[in-house]
């Protein structure tokens, strides 16, 4: 088991093993996203309270979920890198940070767009929006640190430490922001507590969430393979691989 783990940890083995995966992954994730979007946009009945604007939910909620679990994945990779010094984990961390930041940005933008018709303003200092904003800053911090440090090995470990510190803080931040919001909460309609959803709304959402995850993994995966090639560009196997193309 450990041996297998170690072998998979070698960038070369990983690259060779996974060379035929991404067309499948890409097709599956895009298929799911298209199906989910069509279902959500065309067939789901409008909400009795929010009307058609509720359809933004199908874009926003998966992005918001993914924004957080993306950070968890980054911190997981960071932990693996710190403990076992597996280079592949560092590469995975490098590959996932900009991806997580963009999905968080998407969550923020869609949240704002959803806010306009429901709350009447583009931005509300709602607990969820605020903690997502802080999460976005955490991603930016990791990316800024990575780009500021020159030595790859050092940059990787520094970013790993920062990600782990961030993940320890994340629940505290989330809790405090929730609490802050209830303290200042104006007496108005809130989205923080969703009404129980009927099945016909819930199922397409599930499809969208799975589609988002798959798409995220696919792009992560492609970026990771790219990162492997960049970092190992001076090795024999990469040169042969490039020559064969």
């Amino acid at each position: 088991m450990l041996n297998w783990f170690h072998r998979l940890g070698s960038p070369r083995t990983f690259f060779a093993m996974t060379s035929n995966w991404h067309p499948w992954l890409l097709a599956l994730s895009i298929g799911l996203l298209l199906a989910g979007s069509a279902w959500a946009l065309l067939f789901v009945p409008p909400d009795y309270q929010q009307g058609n604007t509720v359809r933004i939910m199908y874009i926003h909620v998966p992005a918001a979920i993914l924004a957080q679990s993306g950070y968890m994945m980054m911190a997981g990779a960071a932990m693996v890198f710190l403990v076992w010094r597996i280079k592949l984990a560092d590469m995975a961390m490098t590959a996932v940070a900009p991806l997580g930041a963009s999905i968080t940005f998407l969550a923020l933008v869609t949240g704002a767009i959803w806010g306009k018709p429901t709350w009447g303003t583009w931005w509300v200092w709602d607990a969820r929006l605020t903690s997502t904003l802080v999460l976005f800053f955490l991603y930016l911090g990791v990316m800024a640190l990575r780009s500021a440090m020159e030595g790859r090995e050092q940059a990787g470990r520094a970013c790993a430490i920062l990600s782990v510190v961030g993940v320890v803080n994340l629940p505290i931040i989330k809790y405090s922001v929730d609490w802050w919001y209830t303290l200042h909460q104006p007496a108005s309609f809130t989205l923080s507590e969703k009404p129980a959803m009927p099945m016909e709304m819930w199922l397409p959402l599930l499809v969208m969430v799975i589609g988002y995850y798959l798409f995220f993994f696919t792009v992560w995966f492609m970026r990771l393979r790219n990162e492997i090639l960049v970092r190992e560009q001076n090795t024999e196997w990469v040169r042969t691989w490039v020559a064969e193309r």
Partner: protein
Amino acid sequence: MLRVKELSCTRDQRPLFSSLSFSVASGELLQVVGANGSGKSTLLRCLVGLYTGYEGDVDWQLNEAPLYLGHKAGVKSSLSVLENLQWLAGLRNVSLDSELLGETLSKLRLEGYEDVPCGRLSEGQRKRVALSQFLLCPNACWVMDEPLSAIDDRGLEFLTARMSEHLDDGGSIILSSHQSVPVDRPLSTVSLG
């Protein structure tokens, strides 16, 4: 005292050295030679354990860590000579009594400078403050990166005398230098690049 097996190091995808094997016994002086950028400093940092990005084995058979003098002197310029000495001794758990202090200061020709902040000393004097750890601490192995640069003739004389003494006591020294080392003791070399 030190055994190095198959030591390799690659930085920024450029191999610095590979498959170095050597050993240092007590009473032995090892000089690392090589052109600028050939990895002398990196090798020494690998040996003392500051740089960990190497492959291979570095095996010390010592009770306490080797003393190391790098490019950075480890001397705080806003603190006085005395305060710096106290700090360096404290780091290695050496108690600095007035006898040891007086002896060290006189050997380093820094008497009367006790209370002068190191920032106001000359380059050579600061270097001598940095060398003080080799007088204060009884550690058996010294690792010195370019110890002979920026040092005057008297300082050189003093340093080589102290090095010979240390070797005779059964200590060992690993140093990097462009110049030949004027120490009249058995010398082995590792050349890089």
